[in-house]
C-alpha cells in the first residue's frame, strides 16, 4: 500500500497568488489598496471597507501563538505518524491570524502568546507555511 501523503492545498481563484508566493518562500498577505487593512484568508473584497483593491504585501513571518490544540486523534492517515502534533492559530505581527502547525518544539512546551517565526514546508509541488519558535533556525524545515 502506498504511503499516505499529507493533503496538498488546492488554491481558489482568490488565493492562488498566496500559494504561488509561498513556492518562492515568501509569505504574502492581502492588503487593501484603499484603506490599508490586511486580512486572511484571501478574498475578492476588503472585509473592512469592501474596496475592490486587493494588493499583495509580504509580511515578516513573525508572529505569536494566539491559541493551539494538540491533536491526538488521527483524522487522516498521513498524520498517523505525527500524533500528537500542534495545530495553532498564529497571529502575525502585521495583524492577520492564520491556522498552521507549530513545529520544532515538543507539544507540551507550546504556550499561548509564544513568539514564532514562519518556516516553509515544500510538499508535492506546493509550499505550506509552518511556524517554529522564534530564534530557531529559520527557513526550510528538516
Amino acid at each position, binding site marked *: 500500500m502506498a504511503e499516505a501523503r499529507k*493533503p496538498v492545498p488546492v488554491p481558489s481563484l482568490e*488565493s492562488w497568488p498566496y500559494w504561488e508566493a509561498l513556492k518562492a518562500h515568501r509569505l504574502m498577505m492581502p492588503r487593501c489598496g484603499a484603506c490599508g487593512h490586511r486580512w486572511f484568508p484571501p478574498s475578492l473584497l476588503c472585509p473592512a471597507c469592501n474596496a475592490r483593491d486587493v494588493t499583495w504585501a509580504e509580511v515578516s513571518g513573525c508572529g505569536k501563538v494566539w*491559541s493551539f*490544540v494538540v491533536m491526538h*486523534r488521527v*483524522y487522516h492517515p498521513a498524520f498517523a505518524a505525527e500524533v500528537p502534533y500542534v495545530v495553532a492559530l498564529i497571529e502575525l505581527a502585521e495583524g492577520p491570524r492564520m*491556522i498552521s502547525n507549530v513545529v520544532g518544539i515538543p507539544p507540551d512546551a507550546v504556550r499561548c502568546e509564544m513568539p514564532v517565526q514562519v518556516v516553509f514546508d515544500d510538499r508535492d509541488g506546493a509550499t*505550506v507555511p509552518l511556524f517554529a519558535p522564534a530564534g530557531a533556525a529559520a527557513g526550510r524545515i528538516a
Partner: protein
Amino acid sequence: MHPLRDKYAIVGTGKSRLGRVPDLSALGLLEDAMKNALDEAGLTNRDIDGIVCRGPDDIYAHHQEIAARLGINCAFSTSLDNGGASQILAVMLAVMAIEAGLATTVLCGYGRDSWSRTHRSGEGRMQQNLVPSEQRPREHGPEFGYFAAVATHALGARRHMFQYGTTREDFAAIAVAFREHARRNPEAVMREPLTREDYFAARLIADPFGLYDCSLVTDGAGAVIVTSAERARDLRARPVLIKGFASFNNTGGWYLEDHMVSTAAGESAERAFRMAGLGPADIDTAQIYDCFTYMVLTQLEDYGFCKKGEGGAFVRSGALALEGSLPTNTSGGQLSEAHVEGMLQIVEGVRQLQSVYPPERQVRNADVALVSGHGGNTVCHSSLILGRA
C-alpha cells in the same frame, strides 16, 4: 412591552428513538419525531400549513422531502442553514411567518443519522462525520492536519484557559453534571455513571479536549409545533409561551477579535432578554448548546449567569445540578442524552415547563426556561426564552 412577547406558543414536542437507529434514515427519524409531536398536540398533518426544518447538509430541499413524507402542502416552508443555531431560528421563523399571516401552525424539526453514517465502514469513522466531502475545506486547514469541529472549539477552550485560568477540572464538572442528569433520563444514550476520575482517564482527542468533552455521535430527531397562544388554548397539550428570542452571529469569523472567548451568545442574550423583559436571574432552567464542554462554560458567562472569566468557579459550585441554582441540560444534553443539533434542547425546555417528568428528573417550580443554539463554524448563535403558560 415587545408586541410578540407571549403571543406565540409551542404546543407539541416529539423525539425519535435516540442513539443507534440503523433501521431509519435521517428523514425517517424526523418523520418519527414529527408524528410524535403531532400526536402530543392532538393535531394531524391536515392542521399543519408550515414546515421549517433541517437535516444533514447532503439532503437537498430537506423541507420538501419531509413535507412529501408527511403529505403536507405548505403555505410556508423552508430548510435552513445556521448550524446548531438553526433549530431556534426555525422557531423564530415560524413565529415570523404566523405573525405575517403566511401560516397558522408550523412544524419545526431536525433529524440526523450521525451514528449510522459514521459506522457503516472503517473509512466512515475516519471522516469528519457530517460534512459532505465536496464541502470540506481544501486549503487553510487539511494541510496542517486540522480536521473536525473538535479542534476548532478546542482552540477557544485553550485561549479561555490562558486568559482566565480556566482548567480541565472545570470542563470535567460540566461533563459529570450532565451525565448525572442523563442517568435520570430513560431516553438518554449515555446512562453509565461518569466520575471526575473517568473524565481524566479518558483518551485525549484534541487537547485540551478529551473524550468526555465531546458531544455524542448519535442518530436522532426532534420536533416542535408553533402556533398562536390563542389557538394553543384549544389544543391537547399544555402550551408553553414564547417570551423572547434573538440571534446574533459573529460571522466575521471565529478567529477574529475575542470571538473565541466571548461568543455571539452575549449579543443574542441581551436581545432575547430585552424582548422577554427578563434577565439571567429570572431563568429557572437552562438548556445550553453543548457540542463541547467549554462551549457551555463560555455561554454561561456570555448570558450573564456569572462574570466573564468566572465560568469555571460557577460550574464547579454545583449550580448546574437539578437541585442547583441553575439546573442546566437536565436531559443530559448533547454530551450525554443525544446530539440532535440543539433540537432536543428545545424539547427539554418545553417539557420542563410542562412539568411532565417524575420528581427525580423535574426542575421544581420551573416557570422560565432558557434554550441556546450555537454553531455554523462556531459563530452563529440563537436564544429562546420560554415561559409557563
